[in-house]
């Protein structure tokens, strides 16, 4: 996909304006999944802004975001990085055959206590 089109598509899908970012890094300062990520919330914002999106689409970081909205809540500029990450993740899993999770993967993950909610949510986030 054309780089510019991809950028615009993600911005439109997320409703986020990455230009509002003032590069303070508070999103990455507050992100609970930071250590698990290769690209961090502030990098999602700046890389989408510069159109450097392919590396993000390839990265496992997409599946580490907890959608806990801490970055959304605490961003001083109202940038809402989590929404941007969500849009990049959807772009990745909407590609054919790119589902992160398949029903076959599930049994190995289960234990007796795990709530349905976790399965449903994971399917929403990882599968199209």
């Amino acid at each position, binding site marked *: 996909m054309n780089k510019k089109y991809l950028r615009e598509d993600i911005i439109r899908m997320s409703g986020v304006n990455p230009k*509002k970012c*003032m*590069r*303070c*890094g*508070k*999103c*990455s*300062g*507050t*992100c609970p999944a*930071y*250590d698990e990520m290769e690209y*961090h919330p*502030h990098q999602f914002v700046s890389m989408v802004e510069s159109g450097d999106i392919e590396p993000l689409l390839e990265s496992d970081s997409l599946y580490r975001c907890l959608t806990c909205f*801490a970055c959304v*809540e*605490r*961003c*001083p*500029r*109202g940038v809402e990085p989590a929404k941007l990450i969500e849009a990049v993740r959807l772009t990745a899993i909407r590609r054919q055959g790119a589902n992160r999770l398949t029903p076959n993967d599930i049994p190995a993950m289960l234990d007796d206590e795990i709530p349905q909610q976790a399965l449903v949510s994971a399917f929403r986030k990882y599968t199209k």
Partner: protein
Amino acid sequence: MQRIGVFVCWCGSNIAGTVDVVAVAEALKKEPGVVFSTDYQYMCSQAGQDLIVSSVKEHNLTGLVICSCSPRMHEATFRKTAQVAGLNPYMVEIANIREQCSWVHKDMPIGTEKAIILGKAAVAKVNLNAPLTPGESPVTKRALVIGGGIAGIQTALDIADAGFPVDIVEKKPTIGGKMAQLDKTFPTLDCAACILTPKMVDVAQHENIRIFSYSEVTDVKGFIGNFDVTIKKNARFVNEDICTGCGDCVTKCPQKKVPNEFNLGMDNRSAIYIPFAQAVPKVATIDPAHCTMLKTGKCGVCSKVCKANAIDYTQKDEFITERYGAIVVATGFDPISMDKFDEFAYNQSKDVITSLEFERLTNAAGPTAGKLLRPSDGEHPHKIVFVQCVGSRCDSCAEKGKEYCSKICCMYTAKHAMLTRDKYPDTEVYVFYIDVRTPGKNFDEFYRRAVEEYDVHYIKGMVGKITPEGKKLMVRASDLLDGKQLNIDADLVVLATAIEPDKSARSLATMLTASMDTNDFFTEAHPKLRPVESPTAGVFLSGTCQGPKDIPETVSQAGAAASKVIGLLAKDKLKGNPCVASSDELMCNGCSSCEKVCPYGAITYENKEFRMPDRTTRVRRVASVNPAVCQGCGCCTVTCPSGAMDLRGFMNEQIMAEVDAICK
């Protein structure tokens, strides 16, 4: 009927190059009212002006049209010329045939045709001109300064030194403001009290200055030169004139558990108190919310111990009305509330403090006598995290903080970090910054010294979350340059909070009809060229009420505001702009529309008696314009539904005559 003279200027070749000036003079000769018309090379030169003066005399002219450069250039010149010739200066109109004709059109016939039309419009207007005289009003030679911080103090001292009486109104029991709470000042590190308190004493001893402490302005009427201001002196239940400030009452007062606002609640004071040792005026004040005597009628200890008999439990609020020629607003700032930023745990831990609280903690007169101790347990902190830009530079849609940069935080944080490392070398100090902004004389050098000589760890990144745990504060933050998330177990966290205008500023602005921006900072008459004047004539701005600024800037602005006030008070009379609105009382229907749109509060309504044709009298409510306050924008003239309001110099008739002349 006017007898109009037309004078067409060549301006060398500036006009004559593209406009046939002779043809213009010739064409305008035929206009109604014109009895004389001529051209000359440089009409603004002495010879040109002489030509005008002699022509007025020779042809008995009553009105002048000068076809020349922009009125913004020489209108004043030609008005003076008219005066010399014995005419009213407002009987002159300029046709702008240079900037708006010869300079923008290249073709001679086209330029000439337009110049003639512009000339005709000016002639049509002069035909309807009437002599105008600027109103005069006396100037009360006394100034009011609202706010007794460093801005108000400096302004008052400068005005008083020039020989004019000044009153300072301060809502707290003492003057001194925020600066009195500071420890050291950047970038020289001299102690704030050492440089401020002598000035406070100067104020107290100055023969031209009166201090109304524990007081507030409750009403402002009038206009430049003559403001009638009502000041409410809150009852302090102590006779100020008798109290010697010995402090016996303070030590003996049994109610000692009142949070001390001077130390930002970090220790307690008694119900009768003197805010700090160098307070001016140094008199006690009883806090009625906490005094047992005032609440229950039982106690009276302070009254018993006072040797001067200064305690008066029956004292009432007192209202004073005074007239002033000029008002200076110096209401200052406050740090914003941290309630909406509890990711930094300000409400959860005593060891998360604001920078102003840090000032008190390191101040020798503060709650810890200058020892840097944790508020929670009084232990010495070994790891301190400073967080910059807390609440500053927030997007407006975030609705939590302020959109602007608070300007002073980078420097005072560098100061705090440096002083901490200097006094307690065993302390690790981290500063989280987004940008370090240090423009100012010796400012960046100061910040670099904190990094290079004092080993303060400056980390580019923002703190995202602070979690109090046991005795520690777990600080989670990003280090953008190293690409890491840091987890620091700090002992003390200092938040560089955004500053905002004092809450009293908004209601004061309404009283003064002075304008404010969306952040409640007062706006200047011009952001660059008139930075210490408010758009409301006679109201001046000093200090942080106008925008965030540090002490040197505040003092400079205070001096500038004082010089403007002195310039005003030095005049005996004020000449107004005669082009002001006026209302035809017979047409006015009393609807108040004009009053509502006037940005200056120049229009008031009064009941007036009118004699009717049948010799009865009737009382009607009609508008009246104060010519000293009206600035002549003309907004009211368009709003007036009955057509009673008109603007002198720009009358409806005159403008329509210009329209007609152009469209003919």
